[in-house]
């Protein structure tokens, strides 16, 4: 029933002329608690199959679940950070379905009583525009097991003979964050979707509740998209009053870039169908990262009848207002505000700050500055060679640096060697290469490679005299006040000194002798 043939799509700009997009995003995030939601099994990623399983997460008869205190606290903190109300009393519910990824034949979730509800997150787009995403709810549930499909092509379910299930992931605490319909974004809808998931990821990282690694599945996004006829500008009252169209839900869109692409693709696909007089089938869609298209999944039908009922094995969660306020006191500075504060502390321009944020180097620079480097130097060194190499390896800078043992302290030390006059810029680059090659700390590399500016002013002066004598015409220009000509002499002095001189000092000497 799912075919790989591409559907007709309408040009995006044409689609925007005729339709108004509305989105809804559901983000699942795995908490990084030490244990599962309802039992003491560890949650470590990458363990041997079925080695982190017990009677509770295996759903054996008579096993009784008990709620993980830390997971509830994390859920409340997430709710507070999303400006939500925190329920005074709420329950878990059984979501019943028969599928081997859950050995209990139900998933313990929350239904009509989520722990957090009615919130919002302000999301800043690249040009500084702020879009407010209304949050419907954030609720607690548990992750499912992982299936491996055998016999079909490349592990996909179609054509598989049988499946192999590992329940290590079953029962890991999961928070599902659901937005209200996101209206009024107009043609910027795909960008808003990406910015929201990105802002949410930053927030969850700041809260230190999850690894938020989309590539490892600890943060996963489902994107709902629908179109309605365009009757005016996105925020016009008349436009906002048009009833919502039928939506599709694209599952497991697991990178920021894919969120943007999937929303854009679905808008173009819906537009082609609606414009041709067709109607949208309410269904789930599969996202294909490689081809950038979605294909039909399952139609919403009987399978959606989950027969929820309150979980009889668990008692209600009723956080006292004191508990909630105490947890509110543990919230970190919101990432958006934090960035603004750091930008002002560091004296970066908007563009410079955006480069740092996009490179994922905010924390590294913060630590480097704390270790004594200037903000300018910290940015220069981190966004230089280490950042280039990390990109080349397809890694983020933090992971890359950690893998090589390159620390903020190293960069601060390198900057210290430059400001103390021991190294010039090109020597410092060589030292950084050495540190990246695992040769040790900057000082050790500089020592081992014999990199040190010559501090002997006599030798420098001799070199300056020699160069002035060899270039009488240039010297004459400088005497006439053409100071810029000194550059040519500085280069030659550095050559004489085999690069081991302070170019600034050489310049001073040249000018002093010729003025």
């Amino acid at each position, binding site marked *: 029933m799912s075919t790989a043939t591409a559907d007709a799509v309408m040009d995006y700009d044409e689609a925007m002329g005729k339709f108004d997009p509305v989105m809804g995003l559901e983000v699942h995030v795995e908490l990084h608690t030490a244990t599962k939601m309802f039992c003491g099994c560890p949650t470590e990623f990458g363990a041997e*199959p079925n080695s*982190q399983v017990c009677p509770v997460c*295996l759903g054996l008869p008579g096993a009784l679940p008990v709620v*993980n205190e830390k997971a509830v606290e994390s859920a409340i903190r997430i709710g507070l950070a999303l400006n939500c109300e925190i329920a005074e009393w709420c329950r878990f519910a059984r979501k019943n379905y028969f599928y081997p990824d859950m050995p209990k034949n139900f998933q313990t979730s929350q239904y009509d009583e989520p722990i957090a509800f009615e919130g919002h997150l302000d999301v800043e787009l690249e040009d500084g525009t702020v879009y407010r995403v209304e949050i419907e709810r954030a609720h607690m549930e548990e992750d499912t097991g992982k299936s491996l499909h055998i016999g079909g092509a490349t592990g996909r379910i179609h054509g598989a003979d049988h499946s192999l299930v590992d329940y290590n992931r079953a029962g890991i605490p999961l928070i599902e964050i659901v937005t209200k319909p996101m209206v009024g974004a107009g043609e910027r809808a795909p960008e808003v979707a990406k910015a929201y998931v990105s802002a949410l990821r930053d927030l969850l990282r700041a809260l230190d509740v999850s690894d938020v690694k989309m590539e490892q599945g600890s943060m996963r996004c489902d994107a709902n998209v629908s179109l309605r006829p365009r009757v005016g500008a996105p925020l016009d009252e008349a436009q906002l009053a048009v009833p919502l169209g039928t939506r599709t839900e694209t599952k497991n869109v697991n990178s920021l870039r894919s969120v943007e692409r999937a929303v854009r693709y679905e808008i173009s696909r819906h537009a082609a169908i609606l414009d041709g007089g067709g109607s949208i089938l309410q269904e789930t869609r599969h996202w294909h990262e490689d081809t950038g298209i979605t294909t039909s999944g399952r139609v919403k039908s009987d399978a959606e009848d989950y027969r929820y009922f309150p979980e009889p094995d668990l008692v209600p969660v009723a956080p006292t207002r004191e508990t909630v306020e105490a947890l509110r006191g543990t919230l970190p500075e919101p990432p958006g505000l934090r960035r603004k504060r750091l930008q002002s502390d560091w004296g970066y321009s908007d563009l410079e700050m955006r480069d740092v944020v996009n490179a994922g180097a905010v924390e590294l620079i913060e630590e480097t500055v704390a270790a004594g480097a200037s903000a300018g130097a910290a940015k220069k060194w981190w966004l230089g060679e280490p950042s280039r190499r990390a990109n080349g390896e397809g890694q983020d800078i933090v992971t890359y640096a950690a893998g090589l043992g390159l620390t903020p302290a190293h960069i601060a030390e390198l900057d210290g060697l430059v400001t103390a006059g021991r190294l010039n810029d090109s020597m410092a680059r060589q030292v950084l290469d050495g540190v990246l090659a695992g040769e040790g700390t900057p000082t050790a590399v500089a020592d081992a490679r014999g990199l040190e500016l010559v501090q002997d002013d006599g030798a420098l002066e001799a070199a300056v005299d020699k160069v002035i004598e060899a270039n009488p015409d240039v010297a004459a220009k400088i005497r006439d006040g053409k100071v810029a000509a000194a550059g040519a002499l500085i280069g030659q002095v550095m050559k004489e000194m085999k690069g081991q001189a302070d170019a600034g000092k050489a310049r001073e000497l040249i000018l002093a002798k010729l003025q």
Partner: protein
Amino acid sequence: MSSLSRDDVAHLAGLARIELSNAELDRMVGELGVILESVAKVQQAPTEGVAPMSHPMPLTNVTRPDVVRPSLGAEAVLAGAPEAEQQRFSVPRILDED
């Protein structure tokens, strides 16, 4: 409200992945109907002003600290599996439901 149609039973059987023949369906409509009627007697109890409850004990916030406890071990876990392969539970293929 306690009457159950044949379609209801067929629907529930589908959700529960239970294959029922026509004869079994007919029989279950009758049997489940009797069960529903019996249970429906509770509805005669005077419940005005009584809040619905989902747990017999008046408890809230029963939690455990986030401390690891030993798991069973893969061998014990898989001992109850009808079939295992690559240290995983082997299950029949599932069509068009992922």
